[in-house]
């Protein structure tokens, strides 16, 4: 059975990228243990609209943990306390009646705040645009079984490809590094024969783009892995470094 609960919230409010921000306190009295965390915010927003206050803006879409739209820092942890869980999949049964929860947006230089909990993550798209793909035009592909791919390689590629692009890794990193995000794409494509022809160009361009966008470097804190809702391993970063060294030594034209 669902238990009724009262939840206190301390939420970051900010009207625009250059406006000053502040924490505001709210209380939701008719929360219950079956709700998801975002449904708690829905209930709060309905309450605010009725009171004539602007609701709290937050990004969300699939609410199944796969689109990567949602993402807030909950009590200091990106996506909240439950491991391998995005904010939309966090449920209130993990909280107790009377708890206070602090909610903030992703904070990183490369993620300007749009409004309240919404940030601009376009820099992540630009990293992918720098080389996170295989250059094949539609139509000329050989038969799908023409190149056997060992199951271990394919499974490894999948583990990295599972990244949902939410940005939690960046928000959790003390350096605001995008190394796990970038490394995951590089490691995904490096694990497959289809990704090999462009591997040197890919890693050099993506790493350079990551730096140019204002993301910091990795200093092995592993906070990224701890908050990743898909549990992507920091071995992706090691792969990225290895690929980068190889490309640099080989002196390949990029």
């Amino acid at each position, binding site marked *: 059975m*669902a238990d009724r609960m009262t939840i206190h919230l301390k939420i970051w409010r900010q009207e625009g990228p250059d406006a000053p921000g502040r924490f505001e306190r709210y209380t939701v009295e008719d929360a219950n243990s*079956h*709700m*998801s965390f975002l*449904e708690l915010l*829905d*209930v709060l927003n309905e309450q605010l*609209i*009725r009171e*004539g206050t*602007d*609701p709290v*803006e937050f*990004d969300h*879409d*699939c*609410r*199944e*943990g796969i*689109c*990567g*739209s949602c993402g807030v820092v909950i009590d200091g942890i990106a996506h909240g306390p*439950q491991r391998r*869980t995005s904010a939309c*999949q966090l*449920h209130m*049964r993990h909280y107790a009646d009377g708890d206070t929860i602090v909610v903030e947006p992703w904070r990183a230089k490369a993620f300007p705040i*749009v*409004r309240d909990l919404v940030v*601009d*993550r*376009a820099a*992540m*798209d630009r990293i*992918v*645009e720098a*080389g996170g*793909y*295989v250059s*094949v*035009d*539609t*139509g000329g*592909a*050989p038969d*799908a*079984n023409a190149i*056997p*791919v*060992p*199951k271990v390689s*394919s*499974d490894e*590629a*999948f583990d990295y*490809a599972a990244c949902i*692009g939410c940005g939690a890794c960046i928000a959790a990193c003390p350096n605001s590094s995008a190394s796990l995000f970038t490394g995951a794409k590089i490691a*995904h494509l490096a694990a497959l024969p*289809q*990704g090999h022809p462009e591997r040197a160009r890919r890693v050099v361009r993506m790493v350079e783009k990551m730096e140019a966008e204002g993301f910091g470097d990795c200093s092995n804190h592993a906070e990224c892995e701890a908050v990743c809702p898909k549990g992507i391993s920091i071995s992706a970063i090691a792969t990225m470094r290895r690929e980068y060294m190889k490309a640099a030594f080989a002196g390949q034209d990029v």
Partner: protein
Amino acid sequence: MILDSKVPAGPLQEKWDNYKNSVALVNPANKRKYTVLVVGTGLAGGSAAASLAELGYNVKSFCIQDSARRAHSIAAQGGINAAKNYPNDGDTVWRLFYDTIKGGDYRAREANVYRLAQISNSIIDQCVAQGVPFAREYGGLLDNRSFGGAQVSRTFYSRGQTGQQLLLGAYQAMARQIDAGKIEMMPRREMLDLVVVDGRARGIITRNLVTGELERHVGDAVLLSTGGYGNVYYLSTNAKNSNVTAAWRCHKRGAHFANPCFTQIHPTCIPVSGDYQSKLTLMSESLRNDGRVWVPKETGDPRPPSEIPEDERDYYLERRYPSFGNLVPRDVASRAAKAVTDQGRGVGETGLAVYLDFRDAINRLGKNVIEERYGNLFEMYERITGEDPYQVPMSIFPAVHYTMGGLWVDYELMSNILGLFVLGEANFSDHGANRLGASALMQGLADGYFVIPYTLGGYLAGMDAGDTDTNTAEFAQAEDESRARIDKLLSVQGDKTVTEFHRELGRLVWDHVGMSRTKEGLQGVLSEIQRLREEFWENVRIPGTPDTFNKNLEFAGRVADFMELAELMALDAIDRDESCGAHFREEYQSPEGEALRNDDDYAYVASWEYTGEVSKPKLHKEELEFENVKLTTRSYK
């Protein structure tokens, strides 16, 4: 108006080749003179934008999310069909065609469905080349599994995240073209209107969802790939931002809306748990490969599932449909679940659930195999419900999942407005009255990768590039109307929130235009929808201003359109005096409760024209001709 499907001449197997042999081409040097507006970046829009840019067209791509990678195709779980016949189990292009047209209860166009089956194999080749990590066997070759409505294993998959991997493939192909300067990507834009100049679709009006600014975009053709309208029911498996607005705005500019009452209710979703519930979560159909669906034999059995002995369980799908068992098509499985819960044999707190049990599969194959196949789905289930499906059976119930209806298109995927093409779930074309599992991904990618690159060229070859701009009266009028509508919404300042209205609308549509419909119920709901719509425009309360990031304002515009669409869905369901596929009219059923089709009177596409009055649309019929398959009663027994 006569609806010309433009199906090419010749035998079914040769139609697409004949088309390609004779369609006009645009030479490579001329392609760069044309600009194509692509709205939506899901599987259909993403694959179209990338492919057209590769060909040399200038593409402007729009999405409502903050990134093209977040379109709702990302949430598709189970897989994608193709007639590769890698398992050597007897599959052919013909069988995929036949299963799909039969699965759709013979309400789709033969030529379109055959083309889809033909193209299916190239999609898998393309996606593998892009680096999509499909499931593989130890020998390194691709693995397949089964889905509902088929007796072969033709479904390719990436664990339970196939849609994500395919979408990322298309997104990355787009990223490459963005880097090459061939796609201009415009995220956080919502299409609010279509601009028609001299009878041709030449542009769109968008709202910048960050600044609130209204923008004009001009092109030589408009491609709509904006998905389905399942959120008309409020609760559905669709993402929260999925909506009908772009398609509905085109409808109000003259595009026909076809078969709006064909909406798919997916049998395996996590049941509703409370009033605050914001959406429903699907549990992939692939689970029915190994899970067995059952309810207690006795009504109101209070025992937990583990205490109900084998002979007191009713595996009702296996009992009613021995040859397809748990893998009957979605419409059949959903209605069967409704039948047992109507009898009072449902389980859980609300009685609106049935069990999906993996006990036997775990005993037979071991927990590891089940974990390998469905691990992420089991995890998701546990996160939402707090129950471990390795230990207790899942509780599931049908929920709105997909809409077969959509804007009417011809064989070239062009609507009845010249230059307006509609791709993927947004069109009506390939799934008839019911879509089979793993066919949505196939259709979205077929339309975008392999159909539109040919048919768009055929259209553009006949016209001059770039011969209009955004300064015409038509653009000004469309922008003014969009602005006036936003101002009107904000000026109401009533007492009820957008969500309250949406929830109320959803309940009406679910109760009367849902899994089971009656003429009486449908006629009754019309006036209720009209009343709710009137109340909405008098009493909705939207916070904030038009010139900022304002999600409530976005949602308000979408709910306003759903209020109009809902009425059209009911009218379409009233017109169709038969049961077919997902459209089940209680008056038309066999003594065993199976759907009774009426091919003599209803083998047509119901294509609705907007007449200026929402309550009085005009029906046009495209008669479906079946030259290659014999219309039989669908039987999965």
